[in-house]
């Protein structure tokens, strides 16, 4: 692995020439058991790949499983802060867990780097100087889907999402950039697995396109049933139902579907190529967008460690804010509320040999920031 050695050398060089090396302790709380463990495992593997490549002896990572339960996540956060005395926390996948953990750990003066969840409350009024989101604000991918729908000329979308806060944010985000009429707007049950009734409504609605946000198993079920229903409308959705882990379970039903993502494995830059190659070599599977987010999170942290001592909170915060690392997404910078300003792409699901994956079609939004930055004062 040419890149690995190179990165290690670079890290070593920084370690020698950079600021005095005060060890940094990172606590990762993520979902490693039960339903939804796939996402946490990807984030962890991406993160640890970057840590391994850096070979920085001053970085210590403690990983714990939150079982996707908010109370466990809070308990683990207490443990990380009180017992392990970590400097930085990261790893949470789900918005509700993030809402449970982030405000309290940042209030205690710790840094939190979000590798996945981006609830609007933490981007707007509830923003915090010590909270950095390295993935996206929750609305972002939906906004890109709306922008894509507008650009493609859809005039009458049928939109659906589960009946919970992230679902409502999703439909709001889509509508924010879409601007056309709605043939229907449905909130489904969280965890619903049968969409026959919704499909019948879509068929009868006279829509010209369908937008859906149904993360995890819900999306798999919806896509399979959609393909089988014979409805022939174009579908667009955020990347969550089309990531590498899930696509193989959806199969042919996903082929050709357009989805929006801030990352794909074919984004053309050095860092990304090296990441995709190294990830496959290390774990024997293609990386997902979650893995890329974990990887970027670790590299952001490493870049800040090279510039400042974590005990000097102001300096370290400034170093994080610079986002001086080679992101797998290409250009990456933080907005005033410490959320990403980045390009978001439209991808299409294709089949490479036996493996379902995505290819990038075009950018849907460039240098896109989130809608809540204005409400943030810090």
């Amino acid at each position, binding site marked *: 692995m040419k890149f690995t050695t190179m990165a290690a050398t670079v890290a070593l060089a920084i370690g020698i020439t950079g600021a005095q090396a005060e060890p940094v302790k990172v606590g990762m709380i993520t979902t490693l058991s039960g339903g939804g463990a796939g996402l946490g495992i990807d984030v962890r593997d991406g993160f640890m790949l970057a840590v391994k490549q850096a070979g920085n002896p001053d970085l210590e990572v403690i990983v714990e*499983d939150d079982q996707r339960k908010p*109370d466990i996540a809070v308990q683990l956060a207490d443990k990380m802060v009180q017992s392990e005395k970590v400097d930085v926390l990261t790893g949470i996948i789900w918005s509700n867990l993030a809402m*449970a953990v982030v405000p309290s750990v940042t*209030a205690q003066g710790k840094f939190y780097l979000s590798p996945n969840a981006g609830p609007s409350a933490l981007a707007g009024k509830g923003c915090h100087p010590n909270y950095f989101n390295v993935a996206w604000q929750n609305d972002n991918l939906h906004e890109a889907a709306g922008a894509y729908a507008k650009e493609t000329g859809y005039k009458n979308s049928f939109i659906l999402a589960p009946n919970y806060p*992230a679902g409502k944010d999703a439909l709001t985000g889509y509508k924010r950039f879409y601007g056309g009429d709605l043939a229907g707007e449905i909130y489904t049950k969280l965890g619903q697995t049968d969409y026959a009734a919704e499909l019948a409504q879509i068929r009868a609605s006279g829509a010209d396109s369908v937008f859906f946000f149904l993360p995890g198993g819900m999306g798999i079920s919806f896509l399979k049933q959609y393909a089988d229903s014979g409805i022939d409308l174009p579908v667009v959705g955020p990347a969550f139902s089309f990531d590498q882990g899930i696509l193989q379970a959806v199969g042919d039903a996903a082929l050709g579907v357009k989805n929006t993502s801030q990352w794909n494995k074919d984004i053309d830059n050095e860092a990304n190529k090296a990441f995709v190659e190294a990830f496959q070599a290390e774990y024997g599977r293609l990386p997902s967008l979650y893995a890329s987010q974990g990887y970027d999170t670790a590299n952001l942290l490493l870049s800040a460690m090279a510039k400042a001592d974590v005990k000097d909170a102001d300096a370290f915060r400034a170093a994080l804010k610079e986002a001086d690392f080679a992101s797998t997404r290409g250009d990456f910078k933080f907005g005033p509320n410490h959320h990403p300003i980045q390009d978001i792409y439209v991808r299409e699901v294709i089949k490479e040999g036996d493996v379902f994956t995505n290819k990038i079609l075009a950018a849907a939004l460039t240098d896109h920031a989130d809608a809540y930055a204005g409400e943030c004062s810090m």
Partner: protein
Amino acid sequence: MIRETYLNTLTLGLFVLIPAWALMADEPFTITLMTRAAIFAIAAIGLNIALGIGGLVSLGHAVFFGIGGYAMGILAYHAQTYTPVAEWPFLIDGTKSMPIIWLVAVIVSSLAAFVIGSLSLRTTGVYFIMITLAFGQMFFFFTISWAEYGGEDGLSIYLRNGFPGLNTLAPIQFYGLCLVILCLVLLFTWRLSKSPFGLALNAARQAPIRVETVGLDPTRLKLIAFVISGAITGLAGALFADLNRFVSPTMFSWQTSGEIMIFLILGGVGRLYGPVIGALAYVALEHWLGGLSDYWHIYLGILLLLIVLFGRGGLIGLASGRKVAHD
């Protein structure tokens, strides 16, 4: 074999010694874990009154745990955002004061227990188990879509609520508070089990027709037991929310009901200290097994199976070699 009394004393001793050690060794997280155990114990003591003494197998106690939690969440959320809880028929403000929150939690969960109990007690046996489960699911789905209070995301309370004269943010002080409540609840349950009401309820579990024949109404006895039980579990819910500074619909999920039941059965149903020992053991297992393997649920499952199959009377039964709790 250990005498049950010694075992009980030992357990209470652990609730004092472990945190004392943690305080000296500067291990605040151990105190957090012990707080968790104490709160779970209170929740399970609540269930024990309905299940252990009254024989009501409720798979819906998460309802009361959740109501207690949301009582705290909603009141503190409004206090935190300086908005009133209600303006009509009269102005109700939020609060960050624990005693008021507890009072509200107890009252609201008692009311809920009264309504749920009145309806559910028309059924018996498996039907009772299932109708309590159904009420739990209703509350779960309701809170998931209750957008004002965060829906599935739940509510975050940034600072722990206050108690006059204490700094509740210090883990040991909050723990002390929970321990005192645990002891009070234990004392109350102990008195209750020996009281005329406890005597009649105990008989209503074993021989309802007998209670009826002496001129008492077993259904009303069970209903009141269910209300008291719900109130105590609701109080535990409010404390749990304050421990986490967070509430979410997970508190209402049927798995939560199952877990409360597990604390109780792990320790020993119908025994005064059963829920306390069970909760302590569960938190310890969760902590140690969780550290050993990502697949720790397998070990937990096997352990539970062994206890059900071979250890009637829970851990207390195993340790004391006695199957029946009463003497």
